[in-house]
């Protein structure tokens, strides 16, 4: 999306809708004719692909090489992780609906779906905390074995990404509640959405490679 120009004449009763359009002086154009903030987010996503590529690669290389337990097969609770995966996938739907609300000037819709996204993000983190506490109780610490090291570093890094996303969306939500429609404009909401969806696609890979392929990797 490149621009959100204000209409020449505002129709009556459209203040909220108009306010959600980023003012012309706020637009950050790049030479390619697209918003530079959006390009920046896509560049970040591209670089983060390398980061997660390294972490997933390391996990797979060391899979099945732990000399002491506990092992993945002893700990993983696939039904539980499936529920948390489902919640994160549905949070992407909620985020897409929030972006849709912002792009169509519907502040109520934006706030409702953004709030739901935050709630689902927090629920996912709750599942992760529960899983970690269960694993630690079973003896799997960061330094216990190669599985513990690579598993916690990979899923922990993803969890930090989710936590930062929740923080970002919460700030956006509070700003929207305050009625600061200058900051909560379609471009800013879409960029936050891109980050959130990226966190989701990383988990799609982690869920398949780490959890569902656990028996094969071992």
């Amino acid at each position, binding site marked *: *999306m*490149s*621009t*959100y*120009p204000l*209409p020449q004449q*505002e*129709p009556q*009763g*459209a203040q909220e*809708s108009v306010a*959600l*359009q980023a003012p012309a002086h706020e637009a950050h154009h790049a030479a*390619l*004719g*697209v918003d530079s903030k959006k*390009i920046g987010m*896509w*560049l970040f996503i*591209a*670089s983060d*692909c*390398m980061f*997660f*590529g*390294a972490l997933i*690669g*390391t996990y*797979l*290389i*060391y899979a099945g090489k732990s000399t002491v337990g506990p092992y993945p097969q002893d700990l993983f609770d696939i039904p539980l992780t*499936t529920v948390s*995966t*489902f919640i994160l*996938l*549905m949070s*992407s*739907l909620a*985020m*897409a*609906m929030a972006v*849709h609300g912002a*792009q*169509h*000037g*519907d502040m109520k819709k934006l706030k409702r779906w953004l709030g739901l996204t935050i709630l689902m993000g927090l629920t996912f983190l709750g599942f992760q905390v529960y899983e970690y506490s269960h694993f630690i109780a079973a003896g799997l610490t960061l330094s216990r074995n190669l599985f513990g090291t690579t598993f916690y570093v990979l899923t922990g890094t993803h969890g930090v990404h989710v936590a930062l996303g929740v923080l970002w969306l919460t700030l956006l939500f509070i700003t929207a509640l305050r009625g600061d429609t200058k900051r909560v404009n*379609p471009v800013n909401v*879409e960029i936050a*959405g891109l980050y959130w*969806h*990226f966190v*989701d*696609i990383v988990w*799609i*890979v982690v*869920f*398949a490679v780490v959890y*569902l*392929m656990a028996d*094969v990797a071992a």
Partner: protein
Amino acid sequence: MAEHQSQAAAVHHRAGQGGKGTERTITPKQYFTVAAILAVVTALEVAVVYIEAMRPVLVPALLFLSFLKFLFVVMYFMHLRIDKAIFSVLLVTGLIMGLGTFIAIGAIIP
């Protein structure tokens, strides 16, 4: 209000196409359909793990299903289906670099 909202929406759609004027968009109905597909594919992934007959093809099946989910998220939720090609190029570049990092790590770690 409604008139202005549709005006704003049209601006967005044109912008998404780089100002070409083609009003392609993703509707809430499509978002919900994609979410339903993602849920079904996730259920399939889990089912595949528990079906003994699928064991010989477990890895390719899981890779295919997760790639399908990945595609739906980037094409619809991240708007690559209707957005400028430059963003798709950036994502593919990132994925190639990620794959390169993955291969390089495999090569350097004994």
